């Protein structure tokens, strides 16, 4: 290989260089801006992570698997995964191999950005083909073919998305269309350019036959320069359109992985970490099919992908509309190939909307009811005789209860925290306390006469400050009870207790887990007499707390467990979610029906769930019995 063009320059590289310069400057400024938006504490965290070998290893692995190979999409759909991986990985390899070639053959041109990109134009093949040369020719053609096959699939997907496992796909915006057109044309043009030049610069299994083919009816040399011009222009245009298109995810995603692995979280809806997430969205549209709201076509524009698009465009009205409507079921987050925490961004957005609302929770700290409230003292104020401080009375009573009732000491007992919603589903409480009794579990009922809300609903509404007061109150209650284990019936409570409460040393379990343990320890025995059933994964229990196995384990011992259309992390929200602020009852009903349809696809006799909210929501609309896991267990306990 020798340099063919003296000076190593031709005018056609200008479009490419302009685009390249633009994108470098743009990215540099964006990076600086982003860093200034990250809280100083997080910034330090980030830089520290870059010298931590453990995190560094994870960074590399994640970038390779997620950004280049798109493993997550492969898992979802092979063809779709291949499409993404072939373009990303193929292109990446073309760049890498291109550089290696340059280093090997024309080291004097090192540092010229455009040189490896247009390598075949600037060099000519001399003498016979060496094995080494043939190897590189093969590699370049191989990866080019790989990318081309990906591009071909992408084109096919545009018109028949279902073939790639997607019922609906994203509607591209204008910049997307420009970038897409460029992207689609870059590699065919490169193929043409390299093919026309293959007579001079050489080629392999792809470019050589093309050269011969074209040579039969075209005068190839006349086409060399124009095709290189076209190739360079397509690249340049692509770079110019990049920041305004979905392809911005290519440079951002890798950076997001670094930030995420450093342990950063969303603080503001539009700045800092969130911005990195926003620009990492490839608009792949997987979240469109994931969203339970999209059972109705009118809700399509409320999918997370559009939420992020509107965030990029600063369209506040739309941003608010979507963030207020979202169910926060977390399915789009669970399925997102980039792992964008859109629910977190939505919560941050809600905080901007509702943070100025003032609540007054002083009553939480008052021992006595205010004169205008109906005579309801805080539960247990009677027990608080002698305690001068108003705070702590609630917990004091529970503590007293824990010590007085039964034989065991407080630390041996479990604290049962039913939660607000569970009080609307007395069957859960009744059956669970039945299980407590059958298993000989000593328990203290934390909120028998109703307690204080756990705070999760406030957090979901973006009112995190307000939630802190509530959290402090409940933390005190739980700590003062002396119990070392808390059993909860409501997954909403469980999630917030796990994530936001400081309850070190206290085990927090959902009653599903608790029942599973009882069964494993043989403290209760059940008979397989429950018939056939299907299990609905409550969003907050499954995607929220990662509890998938325990309920299935319990239910398998009770009867025939049937499959639902969507299971595990893909299970569909019941529609009753507290997450959505604006979704009205009619639309929620549609979601419920959709979710029920997916659950009953194999015609189970019963629908089992583990969340009072799901239970109540389904019970209104289901055509067969809906019950909590506690109920079906309690009803099938064998008498000893």
């Amino acid at each position, binding site marked *: 290989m020798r340099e063919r063009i003296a000076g190593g320059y031709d005018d056609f590289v200008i479009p490419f260089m302009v685009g390249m310069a633009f994108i470098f400057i743009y990215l540099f400024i964006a990076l600086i801006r982003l860093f200034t938006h990250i809280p100083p504490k997080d910034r330090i965290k980030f830089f520290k992570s870059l010298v931590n070998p453990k995190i560094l290893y994870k960074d590399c692995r994640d970038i390779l698997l997620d950004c280049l190979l798109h493993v997550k999409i492969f898992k979802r759909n092979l063809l779709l995964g291949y499409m993404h991986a072939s373009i990303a990985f193929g292109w990446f390899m073309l760049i890498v191999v291109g550089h290696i070639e340059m280093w090997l053959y024309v080291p004097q041109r090192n540092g010229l950005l455009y040189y490896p990109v247009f390598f075949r134009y600037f060099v000519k093949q001399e003498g016979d083909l060496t094995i080494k040369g043939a190897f590189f020719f093969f590699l370049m053609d191989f990866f080019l073919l790989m990318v081309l096959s990906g591009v071909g699939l992408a084109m096919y997907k545009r018109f028949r998305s279902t073939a790639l496992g997607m019922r609906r796909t994203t509607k591209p915006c204008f910049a997307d269309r420009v970038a897409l057109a460029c992207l689609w044309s870059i590699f065919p043009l490169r193929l043409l350019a390299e093919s026309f030049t293959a007579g001079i610069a050489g080629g392999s299994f792809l470019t050589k036959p093309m050269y011969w083919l074209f040579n039969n009816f075209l005068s190839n040399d006349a086409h060399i320069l124009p095709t290189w011009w076209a190739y360079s222009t397509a690249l340049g245009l692509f770079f110019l359109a990049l920041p305004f298109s979905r392809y911005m995810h290519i440079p951002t995603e890798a950076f997001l992985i670094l930030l995420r692995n450093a342990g950063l979280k969303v603080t503001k809806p539009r700045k800092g970490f969130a911005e990195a997430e926003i620009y990492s969205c490839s608009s792949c549209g997987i979240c469109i099919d994931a969203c339970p709201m999209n059972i109705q076509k009118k809700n399509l524009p409320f999918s997370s992908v559009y939420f992020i698009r509107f965030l990029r465009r600063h369209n506040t009205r739309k941003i608010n509309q979507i963030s207020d409507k979202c169910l926060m079921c977390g399915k789009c987050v669970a399925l997102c190939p980039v792992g964008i925490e859109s629910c977190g961004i939505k919560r941050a957005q809600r905080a901007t909307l509702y943070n100025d609302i003032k609540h007054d929770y002083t009553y939480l700290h008052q021992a006595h009811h205010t004169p205008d*409230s109906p005579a*309801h003292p805080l539960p247990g104020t009677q027990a608080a005789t002698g305690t001068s401080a108003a705070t702590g009375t609630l917990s004091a009573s529970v503590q007293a209860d824990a010590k007085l009732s039964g034989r065991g000491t407080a630390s041996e007992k479990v604290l049962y925290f039913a939660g607000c919603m569970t009080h609307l589903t007395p069957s859960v409480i009744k059956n669970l306390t039945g299980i407590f009794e059958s298993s000989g579990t000593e328990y203290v009922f934390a909120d028998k006469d109703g307690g204080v809300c756990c705070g999760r609903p406030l957090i979901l509404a973006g009112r995190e400050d307000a939630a802190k007061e509530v959290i402090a109150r409940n933390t005190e209650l739980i700590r003062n009870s002396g119990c070392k284990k808390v059993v909860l019936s409501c997954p909403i409570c469980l999630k917030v207790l796990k994530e936001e409460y400081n309850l070190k040393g206290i085990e927090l379990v959902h009653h599903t887990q608790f029942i599973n343990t009882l069964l494993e320890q043989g403290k209760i025995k059940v008979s397989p007499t429950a018939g056939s059933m299907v299990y609905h994964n409550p969003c907050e229990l499954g995607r929220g707390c990662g509890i998938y196995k325990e309920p299935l384990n319990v239910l398998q011992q009770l009867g025939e467990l049937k499959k639902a259309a969507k299971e595990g992390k893909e299970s569909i929200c019941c529609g009753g979610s507290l997450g959505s602020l604006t979704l009205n009852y009619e639309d929620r009903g549609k979601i419920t029906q959709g979710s029920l349809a997916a659950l009953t696809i194999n015609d189970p006799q019963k629908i089992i769930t583990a969340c009072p909210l799901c239970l109540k929501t389904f019970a209104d609309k289901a055509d067969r019995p809906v019950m909590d896991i506690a109920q079906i267990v309690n009803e099938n306990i064998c008498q000893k």
Partner: protein
Amino acid sequence: MGKFGFALSPSSRINLDEVDKVKFAKLVEIEPDVLKCMACGSCTASCTAGKFVKTSMRSAILALQNGKNEDAINFLKGCLLCGKCTMVCPRAINTRHLIISILKVYQ
């Protein structure tokens, strides 16, 4: 009290002529469910916060309709947004959104 030892006592009357219609229209636009209440009181009866302090969706809606905006805020400021009222409302009013919208519009 002045020189007489007594003064005009403020009217306790609700004066519908003085209702802030612009704000109410804004609220209706944000959450039209506010119009659906039939004053059954289920929300108030089930309220988690209502156990401790007078908290009532029904009373708040009524107070707004009567132009007693401050009363409405007072009926809602203790709300924990737990959502029980949404579950029990026979008219399926989206109470949580209504509550935060009222607080947002009128506070």
